[in-house]
């Protein structure tokens, strides 16, 4: 699992923006992560508690905004949410699909005390 590397990046980005905003403390971090990203929320939280210690982001709450996987069928044009991986188009059973959403992987915003 590469959650440690991911969590270190989250901390680095958080601290960079918190310093720029002259914050004293970071209380909340909002992440946007598509369902197609193979990241385990609990593992990120676990690493976060360890590596954020003694930084101004210590104890900040991580919010995971999970974005559903939205597919578009290239055969019939149907758009649908894919709940399980590799589901065919519900309208025509085609597997010719394009990913419309679900690959997001970014830090959206932080909440800070000034």
């Amino acid at each position, binding site marked *: 699992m590469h959650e440690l*590397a991911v969590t270190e990046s989250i901390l680095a980005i958080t601290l960079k923006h*918190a310093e720029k905003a002259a914050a004293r403390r970071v209380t909340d971090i909002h*992440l946007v992560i598509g369902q*197609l990203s193979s990241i385990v929320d609990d593992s990120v939280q676990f690493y976060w508690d360890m590596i954020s210690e003694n930084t101004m982001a210590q104890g900040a709450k991580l919010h995971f905004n999970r974005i559903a996987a939205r597919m578009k069928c290239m055969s019939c044009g149907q758009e649908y949410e894919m709940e399980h991986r590799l589901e065919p188009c519900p309208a025509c059973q085609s597997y010719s699909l394009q990913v419309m959403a679900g690959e997001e992987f970014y*830090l959206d915003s932080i*909440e800070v005390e000034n």
Partner: protein
Amino acid sequence: MPLSRVPVVEKILSANDQVAETNRQMFDASGVYAINLMASPGAGKTSFILKTIQALSPEVKIGVIEGDTAPVTIDADKISAAGVPAVQINTGGECHLDAVMLKAGILQLQLETLDLLIVENVGNLICPAAFNLGTHINVLVASIPEGDDKPYKYPNIYRGLDVLIINKIDLMPYIDFNMDYFRQGVEILNPGLITFAVSCKTSEGIDAWAEWIRQSIRQYKRT
């Protein structure tokens, strides 16, 4: 205590992506076509690299960067014995190469003397898919004994591929591997993916791959 919300909107792995961009610039400045070679442990990455070297060297000047989780030089030694420069990166237990680790490896090679750089990623089907290295193409070595369900179980790595190698096809008579089922999974995730079925044991299919690489390098050098 005044609270405020600070908009960030930054890709979580943006720092990695920036270094990957630097790596790409280094490749392009020296005219080196770079391949990120991924696979699960035991799929035959090193054997495949050795076969590729056999087929292309010395006509194509090849360098290899070996990513390993442990400080053993088994793979790098085999590559060096084949007469091409090899650099080993020990990831210190990490499950993937990232752009920063690769950059350290690149700096140990004389890029300007090379046409082709093969980066052997750490054996793993999950983590390497998440880290852009700055290489020009992503290649996966899948192998028959791993089973035909791998595209279904590891969709992310298949989605980001430019070329798929199906290795150990000489074992097809001995293993229950449904090629149609495997290929259907690949087709869903990556329609029209360039695929070579090979055997590093019998050398079947290696020539077709070698020819594809020769042409890709030629095309790359023209641009």
